[in-house]
């Protein structure tokens, strides 16, 4: 499988974009009101390689992740998966794992419900992800960020998923938890032949988990 982004344009100051309320995206480009964060960006990633997108914070990596996952619509350009546009309805084959798991989980749901929102993983899968049975009956405030992030990853690894975008998913975690969740994700991604795009600011991490490292800035003409 292959994901392809062609000539993407995206800026937060254009009035024609309705999705601007998504506050969780860095919008660090107010210096230049007319310049888009993402301009003429093209990228092709195959599912047999693990790709790292690396760049300093505030450069637009998160915005690109949201566009690739279909959360944001680019002002122009398109995202194709196997030469077809992302589906408008139904399960999205590109799943996104964000930096702040506590924001990506409904605080009013017990975690069991969160986990099964996308699919119903079996006990063996939960063990591989390091999710303990007892957590399923708890509310998100009762778990740490690392524990919640395991749920976000497990949820995203549904059978219909073919690409995972990990947007700074371990940035807020300690090194041990970071290594734990990456090892778990990589093992499952390898088993299933999933494509992986790791978005990170850490070169060390990129080199460790990915086979190909791309500088974000080099994507734009």
């Amino acid at each position, binding site marked *: 499988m292959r994901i392809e982004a062609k000539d993407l344009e995206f800026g937060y100051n254009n009035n024609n974009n309705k999705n601007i309320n998504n506050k969780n995206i860095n919008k660090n480009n*107010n210096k230049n009101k007319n310049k888009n964060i993402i301009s003429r960006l093209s990228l092709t990633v195959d599912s047999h390689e693990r790709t790292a997108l690396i760049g300093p914070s505030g450069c637009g990596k998160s915005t690109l992740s949201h566009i690739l996952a279909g959360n944001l619509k680019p002002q122009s350009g398109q995202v194709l998966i196997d030469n077809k546009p992302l589906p408008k309805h139904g399960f999205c084959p590109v799943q996104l794992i964000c930096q702040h798991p506590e924001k990506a989980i409904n605080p009013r749901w017990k975690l069991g419900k969160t986990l099964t929102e996308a699919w119903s993983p079996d006990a063996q899968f939960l063990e591989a992800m390091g999710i303990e049975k007892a957590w399923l009956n708890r509310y998100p405030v009762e778990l740490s960020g690392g524990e919640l992030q395991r749920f976000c990853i497990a949820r995203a690894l549904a059978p219909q998923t073919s690409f995972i975008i990990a947007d700074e998913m371990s940035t*807020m975690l300690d090194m041990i938890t970071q290594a734990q969740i990456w090892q778990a994700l990589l093992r499952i991604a390898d088993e299933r032949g999933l494509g992986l795009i790791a978005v990170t600011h850490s070169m060390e991490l990129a080199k460790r988990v990915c086979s190909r490292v791309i500088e974000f800035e080099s994507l734009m003409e």
Partner: protein
Amino acid sequence: MLEVKNLSLFFRMYDRAFKRQDLKVISNLNIIARPGEIIAVAGSSGSGKSLLAHAILGILPKNAFMSGEMLWQKNPLTIKIQKRLRGKEFALVPQSVTYLDPLMKVGRQVSRSKDTTLNLFRRYQLDESAASLFPHELSGGMARRTLLGAALAGNPKLVIADEPTPGLSQDLAENAMAHLREMANNGAAVLLITHDIDLALRFADRIAVFYAGTTVETANAQDFANESHLRHPYSKALWRAMPQNGFEPAPGTQPYAGALPQGCLYAPRCPFATPLCINAQPESRHLRGGEVSCNHAD
């Protein structure tokens, strides 16, 4: 100099069913911030590090209860003294933009005097016109620079920087850290609270390794060059899990603040744990130029 000894802090919370629950977010924490030095408290986010900052400044919420000792220049830090010092000798660089008053223009919030405001704006590459904007009109990065500017405008003796860099671009983050370094060189004690151990290693003199609400070890930044220089089994595990050093995770997770083990907080995951560790939390002791709370460290 700021000394925090055996600080414990818990929150009293209520469930849906009115069941009272005490969440112990900080237990027996020890830390010393010396003038001229940046000490980093490094640990995963959401583990209660920010509360340490709030405890020192005396801005905890009502349902927080505290025990232990805090000394500032050898005198106990009472609420009255905290009130007098914060904003003057104590400065906080807060974590989030919500610390800015949404109804006041940015310039007025930062300002002490006109010259220093302009200097600070220039220093953080903020447009002078930004002074007449309201906080919601700023981008994330600009807001963060404003917070830095507001906190460092006076001449504080203790700077507490709570995650000062996320959302800043590389050079602005470096700039902010350089400013903290400069404040330390001018004799301020800087307490840097961060989840980013790489950042801590690059800019701090000493690192306090934070685990489940306590500091298990205080090490010099150079100690992280080699696993054998570290003291606590958790710090060593942390070292081994870094992407540049093997990426090998130790099993287990940090305990939940509502269900902490009785003894050493790391004992359930520690390969060296003995009954001694399980029964009581080890005292902090000096070891090879640092401090460690472990019965087995040598």
